[in-house]
């Protein structure tokens, strides 16, 4: 979609773009280029000795079973966060759409986690599930369930997933609610006249019509699960036990900033960038298309 009319000037648009392009160039593309260069190098921790190693870093990644495992971990984690985050939010949105009284109150509470920093979210959930003082751990223990995310990798995964989902529900909820609101009431009425009950209407009318919203959120949630959950993992499990909750992004940080394997970390960055660019293209295409519908 393009504007019909526009202003004519050769220099003004560049002037307008300059601040943004400067920031993007200096703080995004330059470092990204650096990462690319470093991925072909082997450095000692201090960067005082640098040797070119070609694709060795990538080969090492490929041969590192734990890195491949991190891929798997990331996929599982992202899938869980996305699916749970979306379905819980959808459930809440569908019912929030029904209630008239107190709707604002519920909504206000449900969007609160959006304001909470991921680290703080991690902190709160770690606090609730802490092995010594966690109230939830205590309650679980009372009903005969031994919670131990320090040792049990499933528990650890569950913990980071819960903290991540909790934080993301708000966002999904808002969009689903808006999506539901934008479905013309007449469609629901037409379906009611056609004899469809609420349950059936949900599955055959509302859900299919939410598909664009859902797809949009799917991409957003995957990106969130991929990247924005770093702080949550750092604050709860730090990737453990073993590498059970060590996602790709956590690995980049861990190998680079804790393990000081800069070449390896740079190679990981490059791998991530490739994934990310693929995701961007998908999203951009999709978003553009959606706009044209509107």
């Amino acid at each position: 979609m393009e504007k019909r009319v526009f202003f004519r000037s050769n220099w003004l648009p560049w002037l307008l773009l300059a601040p943004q392009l400067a920031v993007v160039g200096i703080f995004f593309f330059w470092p990204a280029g650096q990462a690319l260069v470093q991925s072909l190098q082997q450095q000692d921790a201090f960067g005082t000795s640098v040797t070119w190693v070609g694709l060795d870093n990538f080969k090492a990644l490929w041969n590192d079973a734990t890195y491949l495992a991190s891929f798997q971990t990331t996929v599982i984690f992202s899938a869980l966060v996305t699916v749970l985050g979306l379905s819980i939010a959808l459930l809440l949105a569908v019912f929030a759409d029904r209630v008239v009284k107190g709707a604002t109150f519920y909504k206000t509470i449900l969007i609160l986690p959006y304001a909470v920093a991921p680290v703080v979210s991690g902190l709160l959930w770690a606090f609730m599930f802490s092995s010594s003082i966690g109230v939830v751990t205590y309650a679980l223990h009372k009903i005969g369930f031994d919670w131990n995310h320090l040792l049990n990798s499933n528990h650890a995964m569950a913990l980071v997933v819960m903290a991540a989902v909790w934080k993301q529900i708000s966002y999904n909820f808002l969009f689903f609610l808006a999506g539901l609101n934008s479905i013309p009431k007449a469609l629901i009425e037409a379906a009611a006249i056609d004899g469809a009950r609420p349950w059936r209407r949900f599955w055959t009318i509302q859900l299919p019509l939410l598909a664009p919203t859902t797809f949009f959120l799917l991409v957003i949630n995957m990106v969130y699960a991929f990247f924005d959950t770093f702080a949550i993992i750092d604050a709860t499990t730090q990737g453990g036990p073993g590498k059970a909750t060590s996602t790709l992004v956590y690995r980049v940080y861990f190998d680079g900033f804790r393990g000081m394997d800069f070449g390896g970390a740079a190679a990981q960055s490059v791998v991530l960038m490739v994934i990310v660019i693929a995701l961007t293209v998908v999203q951009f295409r999709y978003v553009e298309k959606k706009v044209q519908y509107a």
Partner: protein
Amino acid sequence: MVERRTTLGILAHAIMIVGALIVAFPIYLAFVASTHTPQEIMQSPMPLWPGSNFWESYQTALRGSSSSLTSTPVARMIWVSFVITMIITIGKISISLLSAFAVVYFRFPLRQLCFWAIFITLMLPVEVRIGPTYQVVADLGMINSFAGLSVPLIASATATFLFRQFFLTVPDELVEAARVDGAGPMRFFIDILVPLSVTSIAALFVIQFIYGWNQYLWPLIAATSEDMYPIVVGIKQMIGTGESVSEWNVVMATAVLAMLPPALIVVLMQKWFVKGLVDTEK
């Protein structure tokens, strides 16, 4: 409303209540913990109702406690957070408004490329390029400064995209009317376009405020002295290794304080936020 059945209404309320309770519980618990003494929290289980240590906890947090890892008072951290957040928020919104204006209302060579270049940054989170970015900022001598903590985060694909979407919905006739009225591009931008974008600006203000306030990894490495820690980093430092956390009340008081400003923004600007997002994104 098609169905008038009350059972569905009751079910809806029930689900909303359960949902709200679960969602609110972690925050509630943080508040409760902040009102107890450390000893009370250490009991298993800790009490689930607020205690009487509220003032002590918050005073200690705000003033900075001698025994916590960061002797910096939370008040200072909040100030740092606030300054960084405002630079990020206002910076992002301004440069995005300008670039979206350029991209939508002008035709020039490499226009699509510029837009893509900005858009792709959406997908290059700091985490991915953290090392080199740190190096660049250090080379520019911006480590440990407000600028260093904020400017690298100022580029915004989201905001540029959102503004672009919004601008595309601004009727062409408005530009034409302005041109007939004799307004040049900047005049149109300032007199017409910016005032029209208030809803989007408000929505972005919320998003970017929260983004800025919740920054963690970047300040964690780019702030090298304690008095430049934003509150979110401060909290993490307070817990340290977890080896010696004894003042959970102070930690939780700090957590509550850290949540307060963004929560207020979200709740107070709720309507604008949703409107700005939904009207343009959808």
